[in-house]
């Protein structure tokens, strides 16, 4: 697709154009700007404020609130907290039984126990791994015009397993950037290098692909838009033209190769027909993945970012403004990718840990302490809570840069457990909630909305890992493709797997994904939008996957007990984690009555609603169909697909 190609080209141009000239007409960045900029100073220990609060996080947050004469919000109701933390940590609904057990648990550490239970769940890796896959621009196709399929799901599985095992961030980063260079690299370490193989790539666009690899390192690890998001009137980028190409050299000296993986499950099923018959041989023959391999070659600066104009030769190296981050003795040979990882991870690198913990905060509160989570550059204003950001960064290091202790410390705070209700007096001074005087209601992500709907409907498959799958999707989605492809729904439980296993054609993704703001996977995505438009309502009401969920949930309601009021209560509990208020119960019972009235003499409609054959006989058709329609309403409540 030309706009993708052009988009990349544009990044290239800017990367280079700006880096070359610094700032046309206004001179380059002054050294002082770099030295003074807060984000380029090493994190330091700030004294934890002596305000109220049971954790340091709370004391940092409350000190700032107090400075504006504001109080924090009260704790959210227990059931809301349980649903919130369950959705945040594993992306699924808490079961009714788990909620009731929590409410009945009188032990003082019941919250910590719940959190530990969730952190130990294998679904934790699915939830947080998906966040990482956004950054890694993971997809099952190449992008560009042909958008040809690629087999790289083993990388997705590697990420999920890394999060589940709480792999230290050092190993996590090093294997993804340089797993192939590690001594006696095993298959898993090679699979990890898929991080950089996720780049959109076709033969002939190698240059753009490598620039994206540099950009991705910049935004994911350093929070810097390396030479990209600048303009002529701002003093900006700390990376010079030549330095850009030194970073470029790390990836220029690699190639992306297919690594067969004997012993893995087979990757492709016949439903996926790719290209035309002539090219049938292109189809992968067995399980494989893409890996990065060293491919030594000379790197030149490209004048004006034009690969047809090679300038001086350069070798790998690091930008001067973070040169101190390099560890170990200066070697005479240029650094390799392992050293790139070390440089990123060096404790003298002031950015990496801040950027990383900020993004974790963002996932749990909707906004980072630094709002521009992908831009910690010279233009970036200080974080809302500078002391807290540094505190989290240093604690992260202190715990071996493991994510589970970091996440645990945040969700154990009172700040995390606050109510998300809007408070007028707070909104009047802090409408965007930068002071974190409350939690936020966050509409769930594309994959999670579908997952929990299927879960409530009792049809979600919790099968993990393996080749990407093909759930139902509306016809015609693949029509726009330059190269034809078929979408044959998977059979059996693969049709009902969690959304992160859905096959992702970059140019024609499953329509529910862009509809609910999932990234295309063209470049690294550090933050998803949360749009709110009528076409989403249409999908939630009418899309076949959601309707299947409603059928399942309706059946479950109908079977859950003999009395309508009890059915309403247990179904609300199953979906929202709480029982309905008397008014809500009344609304749903009235709905039940009025829908039953429309169905009473329309057995054909009942069969259609239930998905039964025309001839199917059943005494309870009307009743069962009615409960499908009631269940469908509950699955369409804003509260259902919102984490409160």
């Amino acid at each position, binding site marked *: 697709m030309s706009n993708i190609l052009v988009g990349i080209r544009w990044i290239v141009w800017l990367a280079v154009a700006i880096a070359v000239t610094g700032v046309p007409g206004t001179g380059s960045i002054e050294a002082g700007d770099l030295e003074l900029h807060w984000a380029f100073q090493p994190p330091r220990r700030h004294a934890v404020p002596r305000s109220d609060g049971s954790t340091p996080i709370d004391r940092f947050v409350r000190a700032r609130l107090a400075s504006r004469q504001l109080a924090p919000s009260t704790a959210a109701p227990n059931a809301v907290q349980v649903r919130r933390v369950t959705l945040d940590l594993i992306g699924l609904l808490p079961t009714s039984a788990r909620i009731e057990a929590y409410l009945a648990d009188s032990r003082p550490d019941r919250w910590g126990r719940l959190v530990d239970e969730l952190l130990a769940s294998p679904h934790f890796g699915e939830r947080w791994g998906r966040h990482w896959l956004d950054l890694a621009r993971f997809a099952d196709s190449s992008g560009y015009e042909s958008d040809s399929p690629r087999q790289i799901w083993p990388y997705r599985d590697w990420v999920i397993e890394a999060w589940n095992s709480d792999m230290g961030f050092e190993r996590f980063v090093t294997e993804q950037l340089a797993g192939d260079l590690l001594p006696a690299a095993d298959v898993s370490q090679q699979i990890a290098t898929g991080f950089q193989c996720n780049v959109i790539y076709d033969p002939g666009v190698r240059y753009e692909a490598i620039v994206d690899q540099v950009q991705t390192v910049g935004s994911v690890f350093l929070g810097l838009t390396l030479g990209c998001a600048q303009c*002529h009137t701002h003093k900006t980028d700390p990376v010079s033209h030549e330095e850009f190409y030194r970073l470029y050299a790390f990836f220029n000296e690699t190639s992306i190769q297919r690594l067969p993986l004997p012993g893995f499950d087979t990757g492709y099923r016949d439903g996926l027909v790719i290209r035309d018959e002539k090219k049938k041989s292109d189809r992968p023959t067995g399980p494989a993945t893409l890996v990065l391999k060293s491919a030594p070659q000379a790197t030149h600066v490209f004048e004006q970012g034009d690969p047809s104009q090679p300038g001086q030769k350069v070798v790998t190296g690091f930008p001067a403004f973070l040169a101190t981050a390099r560890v170990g003795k200066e070697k005479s040979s240029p650094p390799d990718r392992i050293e790139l990882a070390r440089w990123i991870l060096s404790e003298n690198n002031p950015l990496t840990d801040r950027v990383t913990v900020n993004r974790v905060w963002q996932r749990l509160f909707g906004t980072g302490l630094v709002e521009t989570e992908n831009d910690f550059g010279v233009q970036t204003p200080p974080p809302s809570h500078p002391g807290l950001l540094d505190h989290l960064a240093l604690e992260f290091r202190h715990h071996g840069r493991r994510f589970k202790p970091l996440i645990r410390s945040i969700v154990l705070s009172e700040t995390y457990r606050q109510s998300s209700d809007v408070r007028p007096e707070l909104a009047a001074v802090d409408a965007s909630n930068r002071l974190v005087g409350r939690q936020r209601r966050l509409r769930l992500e594309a994959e999670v909305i579908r997952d929990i709907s299927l879960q409530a409907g009792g049809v979600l498959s919790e099968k993990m890992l393996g080749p990407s799958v093909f759930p139902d999707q509306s016809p015609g989605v693949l029509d726009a493709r330059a190269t034809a492809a078929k979408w044959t729904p998977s059979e059996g439980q693969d049709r009902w797997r969690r959304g992160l296993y859905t096959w992702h054609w970059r140019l024609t993704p499953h329509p529910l994904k862009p509809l609910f703001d999932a990234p295309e996977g063209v470049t690294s995505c550090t933050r998803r939008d949360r749009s709110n*438009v009528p076409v989403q309502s249409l999908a939630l*009401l*009418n899309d076949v996957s959601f309707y299947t969920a409603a059928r399942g949930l309706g059946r479950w309601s109908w079977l859950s007990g003999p009395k309508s009021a009890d059915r309403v209560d247990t179904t609300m509990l199953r979906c929202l984690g709480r029982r309905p208020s008397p008014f809500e119960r009344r609304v749903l019972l009235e709905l039940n009555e009025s829908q039953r009235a429309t169905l009473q003499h329309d057995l054909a*409609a009942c069969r259609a609603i239930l998905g039964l054959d025309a001839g199917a006989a059943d005494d309870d058709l009307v009743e069962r169909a009615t409960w499908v329609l009631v269940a469908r309403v509950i699955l369409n409540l804003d509260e259902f697909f919102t984490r409160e």
Partner: protein
Amino acid sequence: MHNPASAITSSLSRRAFFGAGGVSLASMSLSQLSAASSGPRPQPSHVAPRARSVIFLFQVGGPSQLDLFDPKPEVNRRDGEELPESLLKQVSFAQIQEKRPRLMGSPYRFRRHGHSGAWVSELMPHTAGIVDRITIARTLRTDDTNHMFAELLMNTGWRRFGRPSLGSWVAYGLGSQSQEMPAFLVLGTKPRSKSANYGSGFLPSQFQATVLRDAGEPILNLSNPPGVTSRRQRLSIDAINRLNRVRLEASGDDEIRARIASYEMAFRMQARAPGLLSLGSETRETLKLYGIEDPSRPSFARNCLMARRLVEQGVRFVQVFHGDWDHHTDIGKRLPGECRVTDQGSAALVLDLARRGLLDDTLVIWGGELGRTPVAQKPMAAGGRVGRDHQIEAFTMWFAGGGVRAGQVIGETNDLGCLPTEAGWHVHDLQATILHALGLDHERLTYRYEGREFRLTDIHGEVKSELFARS
């Protein structure tokens, strides 16, 4: 706050949009709620409106005005000469690195057209055919050579992310005239800074654009699932929104208000959108006018026709994005190609609106976020794929309908086409002028956020009344 919408909307806005406490949100009826975002009602305006709707044909990347609408014989004469130093100091390039870039003439033949005698190049024969129906403004200017930020400035009045877009300001100010479709719809390829160009920023979410899909069905899931009649759907949505209102009252979260409006709109769209979005009822003659061979294939022309159908139904603001016009290299091949794709559809839209009596009420805007330089961007070597860099000091847009005094050419650039001879129109002036056409005063269409009033034009903007016929 100055929202010129009805009293209901104003009082609703005051307490609900600002999150001020005291008044129970649940006391509002559903019809009031939906009225806030979509009710079909004549809107009281700040000034007498000249247009009811806007179609903005946004040419992403920056078309080369010097090869299309702003002929410069002097540049042709001095082809290959260096740009004089005095001028060099006054212009900003995005990419050109040379100390003394060289002028590059246009290889395309320009001719005067129509009664107005406006110059249009041979690359735009269809647009040339409608010059008496459009007004060409040649001295737009912007502040940023970076596409992403120039796009944002054009579409949100601000060079960074986070502000409401032009279309969402209009939707906020005027609501929709259509009960069946949202007030603000977007079609076509996405601009570089993506949804920030048509998002609602800090305005309530129901004012963000709904994006139509380019290929296949423009909107999926318009049909009810098996067994669900319109009546059953209505009962369902009533229950959903009764319960959503309970949650809204408890949480105070405006997103729920937008969600309620979304469900109401979704129901109405189901009734009308399938017919509205199907081109099946268009005659062969109309399709031919637009140059559409296969209405099922995505194309710019198809989006233009769709835009006409949408404003016909009362959609307030339609933005068709198209590009890429970013011809730094290989402009000789890429520019004619882009023109072939866009020229006929753009011109056909104006003609089609006119013959249906819709043009007077619809302001059509054609243009991108910036323009291109009279100097060449290397490589200039023989056979090289030369292009033009970004120009922000002067670029061309055209306007039609909506009270526009057609047949004018407004503004003039210097002999070398790189600077305006007079002040020209800043992007903020353009925005003030577009709002003015709709009857909105850009200084009074404000929204209070975090303690201050925001507006589309920040603290700038001047209505360019020369665009309009004297009323």
